[in-house]
């Protein structure tokens, strides 16, 4: 199956909108974010260099897709809010003033699906050129919460970080393969940043003033990734058919899968369902 001399040709102009179904992510605990995580990525039709050792064993044929659900194998956990309504010691007029700050470290939908799980190809498939998206969804800070809680950036592409709150925040970004940053962001501030390198794992960023605030970021250089929605569902379209190794990451559990192998059928969706017990999440 490693015959790569013939390659999947996909029109370069094809715009792939990752996770059409993920348009709205429920960060759990009530507040519904309007932010969409949409990344455009084009797969270029270039010949594949078959001498390169790659984890992607691409077969001939139409591109397929991977759809799936990540499920919590147990009763829906009931995590106590991080900060109760009206109990914040810092900026109490804004933080947890109207609603408690939920614990977003594990968000399980009514169907048992786990939200905010990253599913992605750990390694960029070689020989295929991708067109990076023109713009990335911004990150915002509202009511002392980062919105969205999980997001994906492309390496080398600028993105925006905003603060819509009436209080100052800061984003203490702690990537593993990039230089971090941490600047104060007064109310209404907006900064533009970018990451030079991809990250092997999503990393956490926090706010020093409001230590409960955190969000997780993956930095990629290919479009084969997804983040599960409120029902734990994800879709990675436009995958070259063949054998792929995916990494599955959830913030509480870290790597649910370091490298899980999936054979993607050509021209049609391949569906998976992965289920994890509470022990994986320290419960």
């Amino acid at each position, binding site marked *: 199956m490693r015959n790569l001399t013939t390659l999947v040709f996909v029109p370069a102009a094809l715009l792939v909108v990752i996770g059409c179904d993920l348009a709205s992510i429920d960060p759990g605990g009530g507040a519904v974010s309007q932010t969409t995580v949409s990344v455009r990525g084009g797969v270029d039709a270039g010949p594949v260099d078959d001498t390169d050792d790659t984890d992607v064993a691409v077969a001939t044929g139409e591109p397929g897709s991977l759809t799936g659900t990540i499920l919590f194998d147990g009763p829906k956990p009931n995590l106590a809010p991080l900060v109760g309504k009206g109990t914040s010691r810092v900026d109490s007029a804004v933080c947890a003033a109207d609603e408690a700050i939920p614990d977003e470290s594990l968000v399980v939908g009514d169907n048992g699906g786990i939200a905010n799980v990253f599913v992605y190809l750990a390694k960029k498939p070689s020989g295929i050129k991708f067109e990076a998206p023109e713009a990335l969804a911004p990150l915002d800070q509202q009511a002392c919460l980062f919105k969205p809680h999980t997001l994906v950036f492309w390496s080398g592409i600028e993105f925006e970080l905003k603060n819509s709150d009436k209080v100052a925040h800061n984003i203490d970004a*702690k990537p593993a393969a990039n230089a971090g940053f941490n600047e*104060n962001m007064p109310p209404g*501030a907006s900064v533009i940043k970018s990451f030079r390198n991809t990250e092997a794992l999503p990393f956490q960023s926090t706010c020093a003033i409001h230590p409960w605030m955190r969000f997780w970021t993956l930095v990629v250089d290919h479009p084969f990734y997804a983040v599960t929605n409120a029902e734990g569902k994800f879709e990675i379209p436009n995958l070259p058919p063949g054998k792929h190794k995916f990494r599955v990451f959830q913030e509480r559990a870290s790597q649910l899968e370091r490298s899980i192998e999936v054979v993607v059928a050509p021209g049609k969706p391949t569906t998976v369902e992965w289920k994890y017990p509470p022990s994986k999440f320290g419960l």
Partner: protein
Amino acid sequence: MPATDQYLRNIKKVHVVFCLSAIAFALSTVLILYRDHDDEWRGYQSDFDAIETAVARNAITAAEVEAGGSAEAYTTKSLELKERISSIDSQLATSNKNYSELSSTVAETARLYDLKGRDVRFKRADRDVAKANLDLGIRDAVPADEMDQLTKAFNDAKSIVDTLELEWEQLETRYREEQKELQEITAERDALEAELKAYTAQVARIETALDDIAPGSTLKRFKRGFMELPIIDGFNGHQRVIQDWLPELKITLGMSKTARFDRCRTCHLGIDKFGAGNVPSFPHGETQDSSPTEWVAANEFPHPFSSHPRPDVYLTASSPHPLPEFGCTICHDGQGSATSFHNAQHGPNDPKQAQEWKDEFGYFHNHFWEYPMLPERLRESSCLKCHHEVIELGVNPKFGPTAPKAFEGWQLIQKYGCFGCHEINGFDGHDRIGPDLRLEPTIEELPKYASDPNMVPGKMRKVGPGLKHIAQKSGENWIAYWTEDPQRFRPSTRMPKFFGLSNLKDHAGIEISKVELAGIAQFLSHQSTDIELDSPAANYVPDAERGKESMAKRGCIACHQHADPAFAGGDADFGPDLSLTAQKLLPGQAGFDWVYTWIRDPQRHHPRSRMPNLFLEPVVDAEGKVTEDPAADIAAFLVGNGPKEWPAPEFDESAANDLAELYLSGKLLTAAQFKDFMETRVFPLAREEIKGDEIELVFDGEGAPDENQFRTLMMNYLGRRSISRYGCYGCHDINGFGTSRPIGTALQDWGRKDPSRLALEHVAEFLHHHGEKDGSSTAAFVNDALKKATADAFDSEEEREEAMRTSFFYDSLMHHGRPGFIFQKLRHPRSYDYEKTSTKTYVERLVMPKFPLSDDNIESIATFVLGLVAEPPSEQYVYTPDRRTEDRNQGEILLRKYNCISCHMTDMHEIEVAVSDGDQAMEPTDASAFHGFALEKLLEIRPPSEAWTGRDHRVVVDGEDDQTLPTMKFRGMLMMTPENSPFYDEDDPETWQYSFTTWEPASLTKPGSEEDAGLKLPGSLFVTQQSRIAKLKKAETGGFAEWLVRRSMGDEFNPKAFDDAWQNGPPPLFGEGVKVQTEWLYRFLREPDQIRYLKTGLRMPKFNMSQNEARILANYFAAADGAIYPYEAIPQSDQGYLAEMQELFSKNHAERASENSYLQESWQMLSTTLCIKCHSVGGREFSAAPNDPNVTHAPNLDRVNSRLRPDWLSVWVSNPKWITPYTAMPIPFPKGQKQYNPLFGADAESQTIGVRDALMNYYRLLEKNTEPLPPWRDPAAAAAEQASLN
């Protein structure tokens, strides 16, 4: 009596005899001349000529290749040039008539010009004489006629000179014109000649040099050969003895001191030859090749031709030991004036080498030269002659460890406390004579030191625990069990073994040992006094599990080990291993309270304890109930399953009586008195008459003691007497021994001890039968080792080195050498008593105990002790650092004394990576994103290092071509490694990654390059593949901090957890000197207050440190970082500065100046906007509990003005990550961010500087602002809110 035929010999015979003897004399004269001339060194000098010739020939070829691309091309081109020149010459001669004519005209003019010049010079002299005479005449006011004459003479002479000078000038002009004309004709040839000269310059230079050593012409060769002949060579021949005369560096010969002559360079000809950049010209190599050309080809040179190693440290003019000042033998010993191998007293490194030398040079061990050259293994000894503080030999920011073995020996002596028995007095009165390792005065000795200003007190603390209160901790049974064989109870203990050694194996030895053990245990309990012990709160139930956690988090593992898996990886051995602590304690509450009190307040138990006060205070809730008592929890964990039952010591009473008799009878008491005493039990001497241990025998009660009382007295006496005999008080504080002197030989001049005074006794016999670890014969082992060495049959280099070490010291001992003696003394301390026990009574036997030392350790100790010669050279040679270096050195000693370096990193990791274009490591930081003034300050307090090393690294990746890439070096923190990488895949080299964060600015510009490649500022992270790493030097300090980080982060690297863990662990002190004010640090070291509230509960403990030590440590950091100390200026609080800032403020922010003064605006910035969200400031106390996870509890800012240096603070408030990359503190006022309007017109740079100045004027501002200002609110938002309300 007239001569007759009978009287005269046969004349013919006489002629024959005369002829033969004349021939014999002539031959012996020739032989004498030959033998006199046949010096070893001439051969070496000839060989070295051959080496230099080969080097020069190679250099010529290299120069040819450099000039022409290849040697052939060079020859072709230079020939071609020459041919062209000669062809032009001949062409000119034949075809240009003018040329030959003009040439001769030019030559003629030049000749005339020279002649005229000579005339001018003569006539000028005449004129000058006339002028001088005239001047003298004027001075002496000679009569007018005489004056006229003088004036005339001068004028005449002057006019002659003027005329001649004019003619001379004309000739010069003519010459120039003619030559110019000629040059026009020969322009082409001249250009070619210049080209040829430039093209061949390099080669010609080397050829000229080569011609001196290996002349090209036969005549020159003959002359050179001729000059090597006997007698002729005395007339400035090129072969000669080279000597260094060192009049100030005297050598002791016999009884007198005389100037030192070192002639070593006569043979060691390449020793001081270094090329540009101090690169050895003749690198040493143990090459198998035998000819100079082969050595040159391999660029490896054997002795004696090789260059000295470490030219940065030795021999070169820029090194601290330049050859002309130091010579050779001051370091190497041996006979410097010798010019032959053997006379120089070379010292073989092992008997195998001795054998080789014997075969090659006729080497033999010479008893008559007292200080032969130090063998390689002991070479570092001699450093101690001048380096009395030792520390700089092991820790040196400039040179690294230069004498690691001597340094290790010094450390081992401190670790094992050898000086408790063997004083090493580094002072002769007040004069320094060598390293100083002596016990500090006891309380009892202090008055003596106070009253005698000439006594320099020792500095070392006793290494063992104090025993003055031992009865509160352990029972007698355990004491006896422990003393008998400490390693049996705790294998890692440093306490040596006194009993059960080879000279105590006979009946008396065994039986009396038992008495001593029982006596020691009893006496120690008897002398023990009680201290007040604390208990936890009455209703507090200690939690052992939480205690275990506290033990890890509160710093115990920084010094101690424990076998519990919770402490896996903690390998500190500064304090004892605590795994079995429980077993030795008294049972029940008594043992628990002892541990509890010890942990809470170590000084109560032992005033000089090195264990610090860790502030393990109980946590009390609002109602006053103790909710957590970490000391009690830790005590509960340590006490665990409680103490163990230990057997009571048993002994035979008759043996006790025997021992008493040995001590008393015929000594303090007569034999009859002793007999009487044993019967009556009444000691014949009164208390006042007794000065020694016998005081224990005096019964305090009425009349005579009963049988039991007498037995108690006797055992106390025997215990105390044993302690005196073994010198236990050298390591332990014991009541009654405050003024006792160390029992062992003083070692300060042991390195010069007369070998005839070493009592070797029957040690050769011992080693013939025993000596090795398994009891087998050392002699046989050495014999075998030498055979193996000859056959080259060792499995590994380590095995060979081990065997050769034993062989060397054995051989030394057999030759009555000091090295062999000390090695054996430490290996088998009692072996010198072999077969002596029958003639020695028990109390006459050797008492030196056996320490748990490896042979490697022993060699280090021997290296150190052999260097103790108490012969300091004259003052200018003794290492005397400048004040700053001295403070740094002394600080390094204290960092180790108090084990600061276990918690704190004082150096950072160093990484050297191979880089290629586009690598993250090569990427400069965009400095324009930061405030310019802060960057300037950053570079001032932390000058950038050079990133490019000038070295290359060969990068080998499977399946890819090797490539050799240049390397860059950075200092900082190692983050992710393949071991902790969450995505490491054994089969995928791409995942073998390291990430690294820099902690100091690095210049990326290549040295010598004009193109500015920018700076990599601290806090820059880069990821690199394992294959790219040329060198990774881990920090030698901060082991506990890193352990704690690993423990709390878990096995998988995670940047957030990593940073969190560092934020809650002991901070690295990298750059601490430029951070804190020296005076504050001094106070903090004496009385550490709590600055941060760490989740681990960890805080800086209080050490048992003297004022002077705190001062040295405080100075150390400033000295190490090049900061100003001990007094630093705080210009930000000066009136002048503030007036200037006020003026600027009024000018730049006129609209604000009407409302606020500069400082008041700054105060508003500090106390109302951002800082207060995490810091307590201006009286707004931070109200949340330190462990509330939803708030950030940053340090109170009230101590900033007395604690931090203003320049450091400027950098910190501008970009905290430049200082501490892991910090949670954000950049408060990022460049370009308009915020907190209208303060400072929302200008971030002014706001940053304002906040710094408010902090440096904190109390001044606090006095003016007794009420906190209302929190800052965005005026626009406030107005909008107001509008909506209306």
